[in-house]
Every structure is written in C-alpha cells, then in structure tokens.
C-alpha cells in the first residue's frame, strides 16, 4: 500500500473500482458540489476533483478535497501543472496530505488560452510526467525536487491520465510506460466512445505488461444531448466520437425518454464493455453537469453494488 486510500484498497483487493468526477463551483458556495458527492457516496469508491477544469476558474481542488475528507469520503485531488510551479505544486501536495488527502492525480491541464482567462500566463515549470516523479520522490525518498529532506513523510497514491484517442497513436502505450517509470500508480483514460480504438490500445498495453504495473480506470462520460456530442466530436482535441454513436442518439429522439435515456443506456453499455477488456481495473464516470445520474448508472451496470467497504 502506498497510501491506503479507499480507492487504493478497492483496487488492491481486485475489485472493479468506480470513481465519480466532481467539478467545484465558480463562486464561494461549494454546496452543490458536496450535494453531488453525498448523492453518489454509496455508489463510488473515490471522488475525482477537477482542478480549474478546462482552464476555467473554480474553487481550488485542494479545498474541495479537504471538505470531502472531513465528510469521510476519499478524494482524488487533481493537480494541473498549468497554474503552479514546483514550489506551489509541492506545497499543495503537502497541504492536501496534511489534511488527509491520499490520492493525487497529475495532469497537464487544458491550455489557458482555451479557458476563462485566455490572457493568463501559463506556468508549465514541470510537466505532468515530471510531477508524478516529484511526488514519488517525496513519498519514496523523502525528498523535494531540490534534494532537500522533508520534515515528515508523505503517503500518496499517485494518479495520472492516459489518452488512447490522442496522436501519435503508436506512441501512446510508450508514453504510458514512461508515466509508470515516473511513478504513476493508477491512471484514468480520456472519455471513451471509440471502443475499437480502446481495445487496440489495451491490447498493446497488455502486451507490454503495463496493466500489471498500474491500475487503469476507463473514462466514461454519458452523453446528455446531441449538441454536446457534436461539440466534443468537432471541438475537443483528443476525443473521438464515432458517427454511429451520433446516429444512435439522433435515432432516439422519438423514443420514450429520448436522447437522454439513450445516452444513459449507452453509458451503461460502455461500462459493461470495458469491464470485459483485459487490463481495465475500473471505471471513472465523468457525468459532467449530470452528476445526479451516477447512482442510476452504477446500479444499471449490474454486479457493482454494494461497493466494497474496508475497516480502517
């Protein structure tokens, strides 16, 4: 055990893990975010808190993560390298850990010009792979980047992301291997819609034995509307939405429940499919602006409830 977080225990005990994503608010009231967390409390093993997601200013992931710890929930604190240099990143790892946060997820972050403050100065002192190594060295060597000794040890379950849908595709498994070498313990994938490409990616990952060195959570995002699907298809780099998915949603317009019901059905099917893929250890559900549907999705998959419980 690296940190003994609930998520780590679930994975280490061989369960198919389920995590949910929470996006903090754009004001000082964290209420809606905490309500979403309470609503899915019994259905997920950990809560992934986004860090100024899509480069839009929000309540800090660390503050939100600490609030979840206070409520007995297991947060995954996302950390982008876009907004903080190595001084602040290390300080926030210490800050989170000193308040009970055990999972730290290292990501590059969407570029600042794509977000709410396009005139901002980007930091990018270290990259996401380097941040994994930074946290690993803090945990395993008791050292900061500078080589200075830490005054008290760090427990951390180190997370990251992989994107099987980005290019160059042939390099993606090697990039994953590099993140493992840097110290990542679990990864979540970019939103999966192109199941064939995921399977091809996972085949390569399994051939390289990467699934035995790192837990892999499949990223799942239910599609709520055709417009949202088209937006992601055409505007979000690194997400592939096959035409047949758009066609299926369009075809559901006249059905009972309409596009939304079809989107949820598709999402449940996707989780059922990824469960069968060798090397996938769990699913990370990113129900953006649709968090209240997470319990329904988890229950509909079948065989996932109740979630495993561990004595501390």
């Amino acid at each position, binding site marked *: 055990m690296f940190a003994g977080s609930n998520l780590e225990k679930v994975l280490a005990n061989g369960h198919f893990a389920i995590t949910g994503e929470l996006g903090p608010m754009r004001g000082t009231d964290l209420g809606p975010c905490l309500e979403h967390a309470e609503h899915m409390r019994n259905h997920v093993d950990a809560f992934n808190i986004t860090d100024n997601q899509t480069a839009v200013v929000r309540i800090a992931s660390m503050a939100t993560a600490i609030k979840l710890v206070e409520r007995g929930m297991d947060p995954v604190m996302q950390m982008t*390298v*876009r907004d903080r240099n*190595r001084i602040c990143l290390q300080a926030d790892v210490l800050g989170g850990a000193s308040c009970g946060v055990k999972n730290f997820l290292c990501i*590059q972050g*969407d*570029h600042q*010009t*794509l977000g709410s403050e396009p005139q901002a100065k*980007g930091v*990018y*002192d*270290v*990259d*996401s*792979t*380097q941040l994994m*190594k*930074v946290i690993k060295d803090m945990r395993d060597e008791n050292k900061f*980047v500078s080589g200075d000794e830490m005054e008290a040890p760090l427990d951390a379950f180190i997370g990251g*992301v*992989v*994107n099987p*849908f*980005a*290019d*160059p595709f042939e*390099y993606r498994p*090697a*990039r994953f*291997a*590099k993140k493992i*070498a*840097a110290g990542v313990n679990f990864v979540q994938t*970019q939103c999966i819609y192109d199941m064939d490409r995921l399977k091809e990616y996972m085949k390569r990952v399994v051939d390289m034995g990467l699934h035995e060195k790192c837990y892999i959570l499949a990223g799942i995002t239910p599609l709520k509307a055709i417009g949202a699907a088209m937006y992601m298809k055409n505007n979000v*780099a*690194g997400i592939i939405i096959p035409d047949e998915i758009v066609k299926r949603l369009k075809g559901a317009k006249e059905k009972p429940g309409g596009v939304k019901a079809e989107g949820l059905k598709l999402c449940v099917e996707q989780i059922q499919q990824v469960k069968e893929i060798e090397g996938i250890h769990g699913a990370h559900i990113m129900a953006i602006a649709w968090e209240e549907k997470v319990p329904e999705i988890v229950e509909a998959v079948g065989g996932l409830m109740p979630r495993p419980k561990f004595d501390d």
Partner: protein
Amino acid sequence: MIIGERKPLEEVFDRTSSFNKILVLGCETCVAVCLAGGKKEAEETAEAISLHRKKENQPVEVKAESVQRQCEFEFIDEFKDLMNDYDVVLSLACGVGVQTMVDRYPEKIVLPGLNTTFLGYPLEQGVWMENCQACGDCVLDKTHGICPITRCTKSMLNGPCGGSSEGKCEISGDIEIECGWHLIHERLKALGKLDYMEEVEPPKNWSTSFHGGPRKIVREDVKIVRGE
C-alpha cells in the same frame, strides 16, 4: 532572427500626437528581413503620420531613416547630429534596438513602433514562425533539432499531451499550430532514435532562462580593460 510586427497605425498616431518633429528610425537587420521595420517600412510609417497630421490640421516634420543595426552603439552613433533636429524617435527596431537608443541618447524620447514578437524564421513568404525561446540550456541535441520548449504549447519535456490530434495542437484555431511533440516523434522515428521518447526527462533548470532574472553574460577573455 528577431521577428516583429508593426504596431497598429492608430496606436502610433496616438503616441506621437504631442510631438512636432519626429524621426522614424528603421533597422536593416532582423526586422527589415521580416518586412516590419526596415527603411521601406520607416518611409511608409513616416508618410502615414504626415498624412494623418495634415488631416488633423496639425502638420508635423517627419523624417524616415534607417540604420544597419540599431542594437549596437557603433552603428547608432552616426545619428548623433540628426538626433538634435528631432524631439522624438519612433523606432521600428525590436525592443533591443529601442533600448539601445535610449541608452545612447538618454535625453531623447524613443518610442517603439513595433511589437517585438519572437525569435523565429520565415517559413514561407508572408509566414513567420517562432522556434526558440532562448531558454539558456539548449536541448535540441536530444530532440534532434525541434525545440520542445517552443514548439510544444505547454513546453513539455516528456512527449505530447492528450490534446495532440492528427499532428495538431489543441490550441489550433484559425491559425493551425502543429504539435511539437508529434513533429519530434516523426523526426526521431525517421532517424531510428525513438528510444529517447521513452526516457523520463527530469524537471528543467529554468534559472538559465529569464526565470533566473534578466540575463547578462560577462566574458573576461574578450573584455577590454581600460587604462592598461
């Protein structure tokens, strides 16, 4: 070389509106090659200021000149006499040239007529591209000639982020930006050196870049010590 872009004329008119004797001074090196601040551009700018001021009924004496290198004292020294005839210099050199002029002629007001944009090269006629950030610790040996600090929007050192799609960077909009790491990957593949893509590159030492403060190189071996 240093690439610059002329400031919008409206801005130039506004900044020079209180002066009646204006010297527009171009530079014949980098900014002339990128068609932003050479003699021709200095003449065009002077003409535009003159026409604008006529229209405003505020006639002005404006002269266009240019110098081989505005960033070196020995070149700008030749303008000493001419400087006395004008109350402002509108410099079409890069920011280095503007500041060299201020250093040499501290009693004069020198205004920038260009925005100094980046270090780069002309990709094709009418297209210039940034490819160096002068970070002070060159890594082009590792990536075989493609700079990850500059060509990767996020200056990543360990490969492309998840926003790389079909060779394009996630910030591509009206102007297409290539993914620097895609380019590096293709180049290393062609050279049979993809092994480098698997190495974990440690955090970079940014103190050699501007982040270590304004940089100054002192070389005792070439310094001229006066009085010896």
